[in-house]
């Protein structure tokens, strides 16, 4: 049979990276967290840095990232991942340090730590999942929730006058001279996944070169809290999120401009 001919080592075009531990992830069906975990680990594998990479997991749905990513990892208090990463990187300047954070973690409670790590030009990479909502705690408004968006804490829609505007934290961070690279990507289509992976690779390459703070924002879904199917949630990302959170590089190192 054809199949036997095809399914063999030589013909392998895609499999799970070895840097991803072989356990099922706890994320909801269709959740972008899982995808980003994978491409991040693909890059780590391709760059051959798994043995000298230290990751920091946030508080949020990805709190358990350390169960999946096969690199040394620390779990940080809510919002403090960039401070924890600073602590690690300062004592291990030769290691590659990244954080993985949701929008509530990074842009609400962790605003100060994120901004000051960026301002110090800490040589770390931040993978920032912007799904516009608090996932783990069940659907509260995030700083990034869209105007008018209904969440459990904005049941009548986010009223920007009283609850604040959806925040473009990446644009703010890009202003800081310590920051080398900021980009906004997404993972709800195969082409975008490829693109996002390239961006993560870029960020880690700048990191390896010691060029300062780099951040890859991924505009993502949260089907469970949007109360949508995964496919619907991806359409939401495409039609609602991305028109506001436009994809593309926000800051690239001047030398590569």
């Amino acid at each position, binding site marked *: 049979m054809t199949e036997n001919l095809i399914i063999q080592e030589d013909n392998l075009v895609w499999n799970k990276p070895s840097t991803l531990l072989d356990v099922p992830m706890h994320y909801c069906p269709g959740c972008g967290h899982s995808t980003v975990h994978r491409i991040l680990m693909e890059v780590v594998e391709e760059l051959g840095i798994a043995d000298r990479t230290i990751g920091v997991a946030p508080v949020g749905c990805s709190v358990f990232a350390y169960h999946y990513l096969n690199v040394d990892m620390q779990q940080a208090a809510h919002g403090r991942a960039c*401070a924890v990463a600073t602590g690690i990187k300062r004592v291990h300047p030769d290691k590659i340090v990244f954080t993985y954070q949701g929008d509530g973690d990074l842009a609400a409670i962790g605003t100060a730590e994120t901004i000051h790590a960026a301002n110090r030009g800490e040589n770390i990479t931040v993978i920032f999942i912007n799904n516009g909502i608090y996932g783990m705690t069940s659907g509260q408004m995030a700083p990034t929730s869209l105007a008018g968006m209904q969440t459990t804490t904005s049941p009548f829609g986010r009223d920007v006058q009283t609850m604040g505007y959806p925040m473009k934290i990446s644009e703010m961070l890009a202003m800081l001279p310590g920051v080398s690279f900021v980009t906004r990507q997404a993972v709800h289509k195969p082409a975008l996944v490829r693109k996002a992976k390239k961006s993560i690779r870029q960020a880690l390459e700048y990191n390896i070169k010691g060029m300062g703070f780099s951040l890859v924002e991924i505009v993502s879904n949260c089907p469970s809290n949007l109360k949508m199917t995964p496919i619907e949630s991806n359409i939401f990302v495409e039609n609602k999120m991305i028109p506001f959170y436009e994809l593309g590089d926000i800051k690239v190192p001047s030398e590569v401009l």
Partner: protein
Amino acid sequence: MADKKLMKGNEALAEAMIRAGCDAYFGYPITPQSEVLEYLAREATNRTGMVVLQAESEVAAVNMIYGAAGAGARVMTTSSSPGMSLMMEGVSYIASAELPCLFANVNRGGPGLGTIQPSQADYFQSVKGGGHGDYKMFVLAPSSVQEMVDFVKLGFDVADKYRTPVMILADGAIGQMMEKVVLFEQMPRPDKNAKTWATTGRADRPVRNYITSLHIQAEKMEEINMRLQAKYRDMEENEVRYQAIDIDDADYILTGFGLGARIAMRAMEMGREKGYKIGLIRPITLFPFPTKIFEEVGSKVKGILDVEMNCGQMVEDVRLSVEGRCPVKFYGRTGGVIPSPEEILEKFEEYFIK
């Protein structure tokens, strides 16, 4: 040759940090302990390559400590009361994740913004757990500049031995005063890749290391707590430290910690001159508390007077030890006011002599 110097408490602490081979200090300025960061900024990096970083806040500082300690480094932060309060979440995380590191709280008068004068009113916070959950710090109370030096070394050792956060609870006066100190020799910075549990990069370890305090199954979290409690019991058995002076013939005991004990010591001298048989017990470790010695003297003496620069905190631990065996009285000044030896002696006479 011993390195003998006149030094400010805060600077002695900083110097000891450098000499103890500390890898990194993260802190945020606050009176009366800003000299620590300032001294280190001047001295440390050039001498040992130690990292010194002014964080954007105490919240950031404690989490930098968490990160660096988790990554195997010998690290410390210092603050004073309001700043310490901001670190409470971090302290609880560190205790739960069992990361060795050193804190110093150069206690000022509270509550609130309070005053910058010396105080001991953060005893409860340090000893009972200002952060959430069942955890303890190993708490050392220096009463001299010399102990500011010695307890840095001891603190790091205990932290590493038990994988636990250690607190040096000093009051503002000990941070600000100068005394003669004998400094220990410069120690090499320990190999930060040596801790097998630390996140130093997987290298050739077969499995990754991870540091966490999250255990979503209650039973697992209880296990962690049981392990922590076992460790605390170990400390109670092996790490209790106190100073006892003239307690053998004593009819009365004065007690107190840190500067309070130094002042009480003077009151004791004055009392002895007046013919009162007073002894003194100075708990050096506030946790583990020297319960046994109080239990013992409690059955022998006519009364204990506890002196603190607060409204009565350690006195609860004294009472828990004595359990009614003899009267335990309390005298305290608070909000930054320092009691004088004279007023202590007066109170002593009021309680026990008249």
